[in-house]
């Protein structure tokens, strides 16, 4: 009896507050916009019994999805989110890998401190970390002051409210997610393999490319997915650091909902975003599964 309760309580909670809401989103994405509260139609009327349900189903259609396909704002936003997420993931990897590598090569007594230093920003407010770049990157910001003070530039650079600022913001906030899985694989790496490669005549450089990098691929993949997947739906970074050229689907969904109050279209945007995310999420879970099996 108790065992049943232990299973049922979290199960029912997640069913009610995770799965059912998605069904509702799907349903509303098939409804029509209406000037009413709530602002969509038809509304399922269970009191009308079987006829109510039949009328309800008959009124659903794919109009909103057809609308998304014809208005190029939406598919441009999806493509641009994917592109920004991809470029940002590559940049985060380029910054994160050397740091993870150096951490794994550091003295053993140093490693807990270094690990703590990587994790600490993760506990600090995401919003504040994004915000901290606004003062640095603005026209009269600290970076421009520094560069002009050094005489490197004589006109302030425009960085805030461009895609460059969005990339900086993403690399900055998602860096721990990239460093930690790569560090985990590099730390386990058997260094006698590197010595063997060098004994067999490899240079240090080629030993790195032929031994270290291939063996750290599971960590690289995990890190890349942990950055790529959430960045596609990112809202805070493009809103604070991006400009009018920055088109991201998380921002479009937010505006569709809060500014245009078009719930059915916002729901349709969410459904398509979910479909796009299914592929990387499945690949990510497969990668994790493989690592769990290999790690034992």
């Amino acid at each position: 009896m108790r065992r049943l309760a232990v299973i049922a309580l979290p199960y029912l909670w997640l069913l009610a507050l995770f799965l059912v809401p998605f069904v509702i989103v799907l349903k509303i994405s098939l409804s029509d916009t209406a000037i009413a509260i709530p602002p969509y139609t038809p509304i399922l009327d269970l009191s009308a019994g079987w006829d109510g349900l039949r009328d309800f189903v008959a009124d659903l259609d794919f109009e909103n999805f057809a609308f998304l396909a014809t208005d190029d704002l939406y598919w441009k936003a999806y493509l641009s989110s994917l592109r920004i997420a991809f470029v940002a993931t590559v940049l985060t990897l380029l910054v994160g890998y050397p740091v993870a590598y150096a951490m794994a090569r550091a003295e053993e007594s140093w490693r807990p401190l270094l690990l703590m230093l990587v994790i600490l920003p993760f506990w600090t407010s995401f919003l504040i970390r994004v915000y901290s770049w606004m003062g640095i990157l603005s026209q009269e910001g600290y970076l421009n002051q520094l560069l002009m003070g050094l005489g490197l530039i004589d006109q302030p650079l425009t960085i805030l409210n461009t895609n460059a600022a969005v990339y900086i913001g993403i690399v900055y906030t998602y860096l721990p997610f990239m460093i930690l899985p790569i560090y985990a694989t590099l730390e386990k790496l058997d260094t006698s393999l590197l010595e063997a490669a060098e004994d067999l005549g490899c240079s240090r450089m080629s030993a790195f490319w032929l031994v270290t990098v291939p063996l750290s691929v599971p960590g690289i993949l995990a890190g890349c997915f942990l950055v790529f997947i959430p960045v596609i739906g990112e809202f805070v970074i493009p809103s604070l650091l991006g400009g009018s050229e920055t088109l991201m689907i998380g921002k479009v969904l937010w505006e569709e909902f809060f500014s245009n109050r078009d719930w059915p279209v916002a729901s349709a945007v969410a459904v398509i975003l979910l479909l796009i995310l299914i592929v990387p999420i499945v690949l990510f879970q497969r990668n994790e599964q493989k690592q769990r099996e290999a790690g034992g």
Partner: protein
Amino acid sequence: MRRFSWINATSLTLGFAFLYLPMLILIVYSFNASKLVTVWAGFSTRWYGELLRNDAFLGAAWVTLKVAVLSSTLATILGTMAAHVLVRGGRFAGRTLFSGMIYAPLVMPEVITGLSLLLLFIGIGLDRGIVTIVLAHTTFSMCYVSVVVSSRLVSFDRALEEAALDLGCTPFQAFRLVTLPIIAPAVISGWLLAFTLSLDDLVIASFVTGPSATTLPMKIWSSVRLGVSPEINALSTLLIGIVTLGVITASLVSKRAIASRQRDEQAAQQT
């Protein structure tokens, strides 16, 4: 470990400078006397004073704290149960769906979670406010808790539980007297994680809240959209300070707990 080259030293220095300089600048400029945020005009704690007199911020902080304590406690209870089910539950109908629902929220974009929960709350006619934010935060943070706790449960010697059961414990007693003390560090870090996730959340809270409840991130958001402000710098510094203190305390406490447990285990083996 052999050869720690200058390349490694450089990448560590640059990497950590990148991670910490922006926050350091923020902290330094929170003590700036000038209203112009980018011009230094001498040391002052003026903005901290203004912050403490700002009732809107204090009210929002209070709402945020209430939401975070309630939701992280609920999430810890549900998440620990879920972890127990995942690791010890054996086979039951719908297990795949269950583990899918545990892992999916971890990578779900916040805009989707927020939108879907709001539509649910409106659908069932629940008044939006603190209650709906607590429900929403509990749902996504219980998944984080269950991941943290289940990684501890996996590495835990099951024979200890079985011994307790053989000696006449009920399953609940075995959990309370044997399992819970051993997984306690993971449960506590799960609670802390849930607490900071709730403290930090802007997007989901903005969707599911009503006019009656404004959280601190929502307050920060509406002010930050207009640009950098010295008051927000002061508030950020306070939050960074609290989190840093909390993380360092938690890691020291857990280090001590692990050390004392290892001593106990060694003592038990010797007798």
